[in-house]
């Protein structure tokens, strides 16, 4: 279905765009980032043995750093085409090449935009789920001070969906508001992140995990003033996870989740405060909850932005009175240097502390110290 939608939209764009020489705008963004972890750690799966420290910089794509310097964990190149199809209609496609996929380009985003009025915009197609404050542009490194939005918050195996968005903008006093209603589905077959966990926890590497998030339904309210930009989000979805084993048997988890979030940025010249607080509940009889938050302080001085960030993620089962399953925090220190109007250099040091429950295998990340540096650009 997704393939057909994609083909249909792209053919549509080509058919409409080429003969009429429709107005087509190209732009793009990219990041070339190298990094490595700095030490070794006790291997949680092989007691008594050491392994390289590992930092998962990108959970969804399983982009990781170990002791060997790599450009592949986070480097990305994206090209966006926006085709103006007439007065109020446009089609957008993003061709994205990531190091984690050996830079094989894929159409990650493709959607139609209909600007019904000055204040109402409708979108249909494939986009990112507005889960966290930075979710919709988490890969556009140029758009935020850090090397990446703190990866231990952005740990979900689903980040995108096929669906519809309705965005309504209005003013309240001196404040600008945008309320977005969204609905969609995501059928992730052979999910990368879930497949990685299968192997990590001693499963068969041939186990294929299908992760389906359906009836993703929610609302996003963004309010901004002179010195602040805040965002509230609520959404819910049904979840069906099927594990297909090598012997053709399978098992299935059926549940639903609710996401709550409140985040934003506040400009207190010369400082910027960035924060995000999120809370996820899973309707699974165990009282599963995922509280996460981040707080960051950026100092803006000419072309330099030194910053610190603290991000904390937790996984609890409240009905079983278990509150230390997967749990970790990252303390990050870095600086961004804007050396060109459209490019910045960043260097960041991440101190990851795994506070997970070791006996039950939840402390699978292990502590790590990581250095990464690179360039983000837009064009």
């Amino acid at each position, binding site marked *: 279905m997704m393939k057909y939608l994609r083909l249909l939209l792209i053919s549509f764009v080509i058919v409409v765009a080429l003969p009429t020489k429709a107005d087509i705008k190209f*732009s793009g*963004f990219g990041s070339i980032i190298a990094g*490595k972890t*700095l030490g070794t750690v006790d291997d949680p799966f092989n007691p008594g043995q050491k392994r390289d420290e590992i930092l998962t910089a990108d959970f969804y794509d399983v982009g990781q750093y170990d002791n060997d*310097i790599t450009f592949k964990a986070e480097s990305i190149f*994206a090209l*966006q085409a*926006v085709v103006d199809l007439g007065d109020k209609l446009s089609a*957008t496609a*993003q061709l994205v090449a990531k190091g984690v996929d050996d830079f094989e380009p894929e159409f990650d985003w493709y*959607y139609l*935009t209909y600007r019904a009025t*000055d*204040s109402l*915009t409708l*979108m249909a197609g494939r*986009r*990112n789920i507005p889960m966290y404050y930075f979710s*919709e*542009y988490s890969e*556009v490194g*140029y*758009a*935020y001070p850090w090397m990446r939005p703190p990866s231990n918050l952005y740990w979900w195996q689903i980040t995108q969906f096929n669906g519809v968005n309705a*965005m309504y*903008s209005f*003013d309240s006093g*001196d404040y*600008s508001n945008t309320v977005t209603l969204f609905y969609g589905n995501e059928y992730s077959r052979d999910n990368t992140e879930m497949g990685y966990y299968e192997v990590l926890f001693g499963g068969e590497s041939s186990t294929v995990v299908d992760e389906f998030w359906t009836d993703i339904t929610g609302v996003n309210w963004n309010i*901004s003033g*002179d*010195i602040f930009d805040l965002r509230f989000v609520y959404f819910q979805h049904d979840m069906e996870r099927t594990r297909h084993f090598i012997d053709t048997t399978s098992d299935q988890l059926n549940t639903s989740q609710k996401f709550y979030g409140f985040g934003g940025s506040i*400009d207190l010249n010369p400082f910027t405060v960035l924060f995000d607080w999120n809370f996820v509940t899973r309707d699974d009889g165990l009282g599963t909850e995922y509280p996460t938050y981040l707080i960051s302080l950026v100092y*803006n*001085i*000419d*072309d*330099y*932005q*030194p910053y610190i960030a603290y991000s904390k993620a937790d996984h609890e089962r409240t009905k079983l009175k278990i509150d230390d399953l997967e749990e970790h925090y990252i303390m990050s220190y870095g*600086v961004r240097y*804007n050396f060109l*109007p*459209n490019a*910045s250099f960043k*260097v960041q*040091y991440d101190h990851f502390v795994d506070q997970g429950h070791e006996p039950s295998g939840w402390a699978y990340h292990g502590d790590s110290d990581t*250095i990464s*540096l690179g360039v983000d650009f*837009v064009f």
Partner: protein
Amino acid sequence: MLCLFKSVKRIVVLGLSIISLIVINQAFAEVAIVVHPSNSSSFDKATIKKIFLGKSKSFSNGRAAILLSATPKDPITEEFNKKVIGKSSNQVNAYWSKMIFTGKGTPPQEMASTSEIIAAISANPDAIGYMDASAATSAVKVVATF
């Protein structure tokens, strides 16, 4: 690698310290906000800021605004961003990169020179731009200076 990081850190700290010690006093240019002479919409600082950030799509006369900007190299751009938008050019560029790649906005069209901005605005009743106040001619209407 760690000692590289430490030396980078040292250089950065040193650099920041030096920069923070130097207070530069320069005579800055005055920024003029210009529109077509026929545009009789009302403009205050908050309105101008909202228009140039794409938060207000139309003038008070109800017509959709067409945004023009000078090049990033033109010093007036930094002046405009600091005085009117209240952010550094880098922060403004970061804001627009977020808007472009989430499909939520289109940045002002960059014009190569002040004379091109004047020509474009004098030819289009719905265009708005900014320039060094001393460069504005009678072909455009100055609605505010900062």
